[in-house]
């Protein structure tokens, strides 16, 4: 099902072979993008992979950016039905668009969110724990929801990381590089780079805009000590990844 074209990305992430047990278990995957090259397609691709019929993966999706209908529409084009996955308890959608409630402090809100995630995973049978993926879209909006306090968000991310050690699940986050580019020391952004086991950067080409290529992806896989770089083009139903010069 259109698997051939995303093979380079799957290969770089270790998803090209068996996906049961989930190859990304116990790892933190950080996706970084820019305005010109949105990295959401990587998020959608990982979501599709984790909800593949070949695996028993469970995904907890924490959405600060878009409502459920948005992801449903996109994943439908990729061949995945989020509604039925949600009904089958393989997909848990935490709508955080309204996190800003009066009376709840940012820290309190994040502690509660952590508790909710922990509870959701604990409720699953123990064998499924390592097949759980926690996806956060996206970190900069989480910072906004926490009233700009990156400290609380970093604390929350730390606790999410303890989930990866506790349950052996995986954590996938998306953040935008250009939001922090004006700062002298983008601490929050750099912190994620240190935390990540796999770092995926979506950047425009050095040569500028092009019709055949939307941008380049650089995947740094610390666990495998491997760095890959290739171009991508986002199409209607699929993302094509290819080495430079071969589209």
């Amino acid at each position: 099902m259109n698997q051939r074209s995303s093979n380079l990305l799957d290969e770089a992430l270790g998803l090209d072979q068996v996906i049961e047990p989930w190859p990304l278990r116990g790892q933190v995957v950080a996706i970084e993008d820019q305005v010109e090259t949105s990295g959401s397609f990587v998020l959608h691709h990982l979501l599709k992979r984790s909800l593949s019929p070949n695996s028993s993966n469970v995904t907890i999706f924490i959405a600060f950016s878009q409502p459920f209908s948005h992801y449903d529409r996109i994943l439908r084009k990729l061949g995945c039905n989020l509604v039925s996955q949600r009904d089958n308890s393989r997909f848990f959608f935490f709508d955080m668009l309204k996190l800003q409630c009066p009376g709840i402090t940012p820290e309190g809100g994040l502690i509660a969110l952590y508790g909710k995630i922990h509870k959701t995973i604990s409720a699953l049978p123990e064998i499924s724990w390592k097949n759980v993926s926690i996806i956060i879209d996206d970190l900069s909006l989480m910072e906004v929801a926490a009233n700009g306090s990156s400290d609380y968000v970093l604390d929350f991310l730390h606790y999410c990381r303890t989930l990866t050690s506790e349950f052996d699940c995986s954590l996938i986050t998306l953040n935008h590089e250009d939001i922090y580019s004006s700062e002298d020391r983008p601490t929050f952004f750099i912190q994620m780079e240190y935390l990540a086991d796999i770092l995926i950067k979506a950047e425009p080409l050095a040569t500028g805009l092009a019709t055949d290529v939307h941008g380049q992806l650089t995947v740094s896989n610390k666990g495998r000590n491997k760095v890959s770089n290739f171009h991508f083009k986002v199409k209607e139903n699929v993302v094509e990844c290819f080495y430079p010069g071969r589209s």
Partner: protein
Amino acid sequence: MAESICRALRDGALEGELAPALTIKDSVASPFALQVFSHVLSQLFSSILAGKSQSRGLVVVSFSRSPSFYLDLLKNKGTDIASSNNQIQILDCYSDPLGWKDQLAGSRNFTALSNEVLVSSTAIVFREVKHMDKLYNSIIELGKGLVGGGKIRFSIAIDSVDEMLRHAPVSSVARFLSNLRSHDQISSIFWLLHSDLHEARVTAVLEYLSSIVASLEPSHQLANGQRGDLENFSLIKHNSKKGKFHVRFKKRNGRVRVMSEEVHIELSGINFTSLPSEGAINQGLVPKVQFSLQLSEKERIDKANVVLPFEHQGNGKPIQIYDGRRSLVDGKHERPFAAVENVQTNENCGSGEIIYYRDSDDEMPDSDEDPDDDLDI
């Protein structure tokens, strides 16, 4: 050089002196501090087990990684953890540093998992990382639990100071580290630091507190810090597996010793080798353009032979330099009659002379006069 570090930590502290302290610092461009830290930790622990070091126990204060990471690390190096329970203790500041799990357990149906029990004999969970004093006391208590009271010393490894600096001001962290160094039961102490997460002054404070500073730098600096260019990709790939390792020792006699090595990151671990010669590195980095950027041997010799127009050449004799005032008769250099071209070159012609052609005959020799003299102010 990595050997020297391990030796210094092994030898420990002298009576009445501060314990040696090591900072291992890196940046995103060469993020290998964890591998170096793990290497130093496993080496030190091996010497502790073998009885070859001053310290008799190791306390690991772990903020960034779970205790099982360290236990697995030592197990993979061949250490039998089960039997060395009384020589290593881990203060677990990773699992619940701010007490969130306690808070949640109090309010709703939160069941903390019990896989912490597996490591509980070697790891104690610490829940109040914002309180430096309590942290200090817990570390000392753990250490004394390992080696007893009295004169026996233990070592401390902190992973990492960045997390501490997030929760407490730099002055508290500095005081905390200083107090640890002055405690008479501490043999040596080392910590990990990511320099780009903090202001320069914070890194400077920690470096002042250390007797050894080990820093990791990328083998190749990326152009303008840009990481988007494909040309830089090969450098990124190179930097992801190799780096430069600089160590600065502050010795007891006041001297400072600086050493450098190259570091290679492999899946199996980290390797230290001596630095290759500069030329070998630079060869691969000269951009391929259509003109020659290098000097040939002859060109280099000729360039060295040119007498520069300074007043003194350092050999006691005053030098007469052509400054444009010599007459036609005088001098070895001829003034061509209709020299239109403005040729001023430091020509290499064996003797290394500077040849100066005047623009035209009408031009007056260079004058000493101040060109502003004719201003009527």
